């Protein structure tokens, strides 16, 4: 398969690629502006989040516009790894929803965002097994049916596929990591199992591609093998990063000072995080009052109350970094 077949015509594919790139850069700008707004107000927003989110956006922009190195299949796999796996993780680690909730001024948009995040269909999609099926199911469909060959003939289909890869990757990563406030927090066991199943499905697909190309394509054997191994080991790296994200959450919450009568933070009633401090209430408070409340929670003094919205901050005993 010649490179012209992979990237047919300038029109649709390029247009879609540039649209996604523009979207990524806009999202990046909006994120940095929102973070700056928090900073001006005197609220803390850790800079590593700015860094990971920006990196994620740039990675998407790069993968959608540039041609990754290697043969056609290897290049396709690189794009899949960046757009569908690595960039979503970086974007989710930036906690964009949390930032939006904190930065938006009170108004309809500010109210609509949590409402959308808590809507029932969204909650179903964010169930980790469902998100895993959407993500990995799409990947299997692409590589094990005629879809892959069809995307090369129909540029519009190619654009839709690329968009789905990014969206599904974001959905899965968001559902597994659960760093932003959503309707229901899922247990670590459920999220870990979804990650295990998804990782296994990815590994099996990668090994299968080593032996047999997607139907209707004729990549060279060397290209196919390089691409398949890249997919296998690249997938491992992202999966380890996801596992570390989950493990850090577990480690931070475990053995935190407990509220009376409950076994631990994970046994808090759902929605508790939102009752702690109302998202909109970020008026600057007198320092005395802030410190008093923080000390009552067993927190090191000198941190602002709004530092710890919306999450678990207060009872975990770790320094607040939400």
């Amino acid at each position: 398969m010649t490179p012209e077949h992979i990237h047919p015509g300038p029109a649709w594919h390029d247009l879609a690629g540039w649209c996604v790139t523009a979207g990524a850069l806009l999202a990046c700008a909006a994120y940095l502006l929102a973070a700056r707004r928090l900073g001006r107000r005197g609220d803390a927003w850790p800079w590593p989040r700015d860094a990971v989110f920006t990196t994620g956006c740039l990675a998407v922009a790069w993968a959608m516009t540039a041609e990754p190195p290697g043969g056609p299949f290897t290049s396709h796999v690189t794009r899949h790894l960046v757009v569908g796996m690595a960039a979503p993780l970086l974007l989710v680690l930036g906690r964009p929803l949390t930032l939006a909730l904190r930065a938006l001024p009170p108004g309809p948009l500010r109210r609509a965002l949590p409402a959308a995040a808590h809507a029932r269909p969204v909650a179903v999609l964010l169930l980790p097994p469902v998100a895993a099926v959407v993500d990995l199911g799409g990947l299997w469909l692409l590589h094990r049916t005629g879809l892959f060959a069809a995307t090369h003939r129909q540029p519009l289909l190619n654009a839709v596929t690329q968009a789905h890869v990014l969206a599904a990757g974001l959905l899965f990563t968001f559902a597994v990591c659960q760093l932003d406030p959503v309707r229901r927090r899922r247990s670590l066991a459920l999220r870990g199992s979804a990650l295990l199943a998804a990782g296994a499905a990815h590994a099996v697909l990668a090994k299968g591609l080593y032996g047999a190309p997607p139907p209707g394509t004729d990549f060279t054997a060397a290209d196919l093998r390089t691409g398949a191994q890249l997919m296998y080991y690249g997938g491992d790296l992202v999966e380890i990063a996801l596992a570390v994200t989950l493990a850090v959450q577990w480690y931070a919450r475990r053995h935190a000072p407990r509220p009376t009568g409950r076994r631990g933070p994970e046994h808090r009633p759902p929605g508790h995080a939102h009752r702690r401090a109302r998202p909109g209430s970020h008026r600057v408070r007198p320092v005395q009052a802030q410190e008093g409340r923080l000390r009552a929670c067993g927190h090191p003094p000198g941190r602002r109350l709004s530092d710890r919205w919306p999450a678990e901050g207060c009872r975990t005993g770790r320094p607040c970094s939400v």
Partner: protein
Amino acid sequence: MNDPERPLRRPRPEPRRSLAVCALIGAALMAAVDEIVFHQLLAWHHFYDRSTTDIGLLSDGLLHTAELLALVAGFFLYADLRRRRALAAAHARAGLFIGLGAFQLFDGVVDHKLLRLHQIRYGTDVTPYDWAWNLGGLALLLIGCTLALRAARRSRAEPTT
């Protein structure tokens, strides 16, 4: 965690948990070593040789992913034990050997022989390799069991630590 409001509890070792956590780490480590040394460095095993059955491929993928997750989980569980000063060192050592041995034996018997995912080496008589592999696993497992028994006996002798 230095929390001034938290009462200081005396550290209490958790032998069973130490053993289980280190067994998990041991199994994951052996899987990783197998993959790195035999697949990557020596290239004795194949990445995928098409002769693998579908069920073999699925089990291979699951096992590989589980190994990665277990390695991460084991590290954090171990760190948690250390943080709470609940690590029972002798039990932990025993657990590590049990994990190493159990995985190697499992790999040798189930993956190589029952599922026939891959062989240790291709193009030669594989029997001596199989024997060395499985006996090595068995030896590690026995060392682990001996250490575990000894650790259990010692902790029974001095129950309050």
